[in-house]
């Protein structure tokens, strides 16, 4: 335990978030767009999610096998935390004007629309630059704003990105069809990288006063994370093939079936780790075997498969928990496979505040993940969940744009501002008392 993190969770709310004072606007739907701004919200930025009334974000409709939580799409709830919700019709002139007023008072604005749509709506980068030269303006989509795929106006999403990047191809077992990930890895990874870009741009702005335009494609970002694949193909002239759970660059590193039909993942490439594993197996002589002694020799496919077979046979005689324990004792990395049950029940996750109870005025209590960055002086905080479409319109129009109630009502009347449709995921939960969570007008 590091002393600086003593009582971290307990004292979390006595410290500000690191991005206090930063205002972010998003005009985003699905995942790649909205996931990033919620990271910034947890880091203390004020994030305003702007949806098109009355239906808003498509993700509000999505659910696993028909399960909604209080009528809301559970993934929408996970992706769109701690934001303010505004519904503004950007198709109409007055909506665009209000949007520009907000941009003039914002630091960051993010979109995930098809290429050239922002331009068509008169809210393209240069339109916004005129009202705010320091704006950090991000557009996220499958293929960027230029290049053949962008110009073909190809739609894209996470699955397409897994397919086109080669990520899925190299994630199955040898000889088996490519395998899709169970999470939307490319979308969320691209969203993370976008915030790295945004934060770096903020630093540059501090030094120069200049904002910038940033273009993100989730496929290009996931390719960046695929590392060794590219020089391997360049140098060997061979394509990378899948290897199941075997790590092709680290040996031993694999997942094994145990005596209790549970799985354990272990890794032991360093000399001390490999020797520890060999000892744990009761086979210390293996650490001196010329096929296995050096890591680079051990990685040669024939040798790698030989040592992994020895470990697999041994693992089948132990339970997963026993091997995890031996890892601690002998100093190699090992864990039994965790599931969503472990996410919920594991005391370590709870003690770190990584898994915590949300206490939301509209959606009540439920567990969710904190941003996995523990910061000793500025702890990130996931505070509330999603809101109905347009729920915070009045608050935003009053506090940021200085409109009075009569002016706001007029904007509603002209359809510039909108509120939720009386439909699943758009309206408040059925047990809502008509007041809770509403900020200005109750």
């Amino acid at each position, binding site marked *: 335990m590091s002393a600086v993190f003593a009582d971290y969770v307990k004292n979390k709310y006595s410290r500000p978030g690191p991005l206090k004072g930063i205002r972010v606007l998003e005009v985003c739907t699905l995942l790649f767009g909205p996931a990033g701004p919620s990271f910034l919200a947890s880091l203390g930025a004020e994030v305003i999610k702007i949806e098109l009334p009355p239906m808003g974000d498509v993700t509000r409709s999505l659910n696993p096998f028909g399960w909604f939580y209080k009528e809301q799409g559970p993934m929408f709830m996970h992706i769109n935390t701690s934001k303010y919700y505004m519904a503004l019709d950007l198709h109409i002139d007055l909506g665009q004007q209000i949007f520009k007023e907000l941009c003039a008072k914002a630091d960051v604005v993010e979109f995930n629309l098809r290429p050239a749509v922002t*331009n068509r709506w008169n809210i393209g980068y240069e339109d916004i630059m005129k009202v705010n030269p320091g704006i950090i303006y991000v557009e996220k989509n499958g293929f960027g704003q230029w290049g053949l795929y962008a110009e073909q106006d*190809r739609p894209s999403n996470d699955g397409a990105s897994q397919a086109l990047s*080669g990520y899925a191809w*190299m994630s199955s077992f040898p000889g088996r069809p490519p395998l899709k990930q169970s999470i939307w890895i490319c979308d969320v990874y691209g969203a993370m990288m976008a915030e790295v870009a945004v934060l770096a741009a903020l630093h540059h702005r501090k030094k120069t006063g200049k904002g910038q335009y940033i273009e993100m494609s989730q496929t290009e970002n996931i390719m960046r994370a695929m590392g060794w694949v590219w020089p*391997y193909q360049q140098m060997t002239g061979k394509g990378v093939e899948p290897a199941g759970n075997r790590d092709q660059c680290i040996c031993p590193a694999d997942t094994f079936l145990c005596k209790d039909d549970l799985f354990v993942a272990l890794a032991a490439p360093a000399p001390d780790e490999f020797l520890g594993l060999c000892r744990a197996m009761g086979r210390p002589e293996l650490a001196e075997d010329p096929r296995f002694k050096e890591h680079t020799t051990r990685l040669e496919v024939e040798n790698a498969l030989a040592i992994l077979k020895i470990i697999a046979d041994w693992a089948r005689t132990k339970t997963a928990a026993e091997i995890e324990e031996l890892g601690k004792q002998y100093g190699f990395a090992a864990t039994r496979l965790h599931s969503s049950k472990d996410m919920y029940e594991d005391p370590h996750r709870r*003690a770190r505040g990584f898994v915590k109870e949300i206490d939301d005025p509209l959606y009540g209590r439920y567990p969710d993940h904190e941003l996995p960055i523990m910061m000793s002086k500025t702890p990130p905080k996931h505070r509330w969940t999603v809101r109905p479409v347009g729920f915070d319109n009045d608050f935003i129009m009053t506090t940021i744009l200085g409109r009075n109630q009569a002016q706001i009502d007029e904007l509603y009347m002209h359809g510039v501002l909108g509120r939720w449709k009386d439909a699943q995921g758009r309206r408040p939960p059925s047990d809502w008392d008509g007041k809770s969570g509403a900020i200005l007008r109750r």
Partner: protein
Amino acid sequence: MAEHKRPKWAAWADHIRSLDDPAKNFEKPEALDDLVVLDLSSRSMAGCFCSSLLAELGAETIRIEPPGGDLVRTYSPGGVMHRGTGLAYLQEGRNKYHITLNLEKEEGREILKCLAGAADVLIETYPTGVMEEWGIGYEELSKLNPRLIYTSISAFGRFGPESGRRQYDYDNVSQARSGIQYGTGEILPEGKTYDEMPYAVPTKAGPWIAWAVSGTFGAMGILAALHYRCQTGEGQAIDIASPEAYERLHDYALHWYADQGVLNERFGNLDTALWLYGFFPTKDGGVFLGGLRLEMWKAFVDIIGKYEEWGAEEWTSLAPFMKKDWQLKYQAMINPETMKYTSEELTAKSVEYAKTGRLAPITTVVAPIVSPADAMKDEVWRDRGIFTPVQDPVYGSIVCAQAQWKATETPPRTKWVCRPVGYDNGFIYLKYLGFGPGRLKELSDQGVI
């Protein structure tokens, strides 16, 4: 493929390209060129990835290895080495100065304190307690340099009941601990065993994604901390656990289990929560099909000529299709249809449908599932600067994935791919400690560098 007809908005595309084409990256300023970063990563590519992201943005990044080099230099497919370095590190040594320093020795630790005094960011990946036992943990270093942003990326984090475990962080183990591997993989058919079908098991992703994710969250935390430091002058400690970082990318699994007791079981190439959304076989491989709105799903049924037969006209909601039994039923109906085409034919049909189909311009997302080899050959990514080789004076022309985002002002760029072990000892030790060749020779003889 038919000749490409440029869209009405081609002028916009050209304009944006003129502003952010990566071919012009080297003419632009660098966002982080005022920062000094120390990377002490040990055995972990998460730390190296994290410092790469900062180095790509211009931070002066000093990679500190034990004499002889860090284990990560041996990470390579099949153990292939290129001029003494594994292929994995040829990606994540980028833009860094490489020095050696033996932290097991008192003198080495004193030198590290000097470097930490001059640095803005320090990244380390040791098990909890190692840095403290050496007397160079956050408490000590922050006394010397209160502005230091000290970042740990590890297997269990720096606090919590498991944090005392002295095990290093490896990608495959973090993937297993995240809960995500559990839910990914082929379904084991009823009555079959794992021994019969050893591939129908929880399956990790091929790339080092847990490491990439924790490294990227690391960079996000560091840059957020930098923002705070600019306002207050205060540095801080950052703690990231790789399994948590990757787990955060899981979506509703935790909530689903808590509310319904449903485990995140494997669902093969379909998606528990989405329709139409999955991988389907074709004559020559497979495609991803996506249509998250009812019309897009109907468009697909039309594309394969089953609109009337399957009664698509009558469908009014996508909701029932997300249910498990419907997904499996329709998967079985779709498979033989997609098998009639090549991946390219299906892709072309979808593009054509957007122009002439009954529901046009609505169409279905169709993407061929390509190998990494084909991805690297794709002219579109080359045109967008992803695979531009880096001309490295030591390692030659190396393909590095780069230009992962485009920017008008401070885009990331890759200047060199790696350096041999201790290559920059002369430059860095002279710059920060005034050590000339004489002193370096002494330190080398003593095994300090």
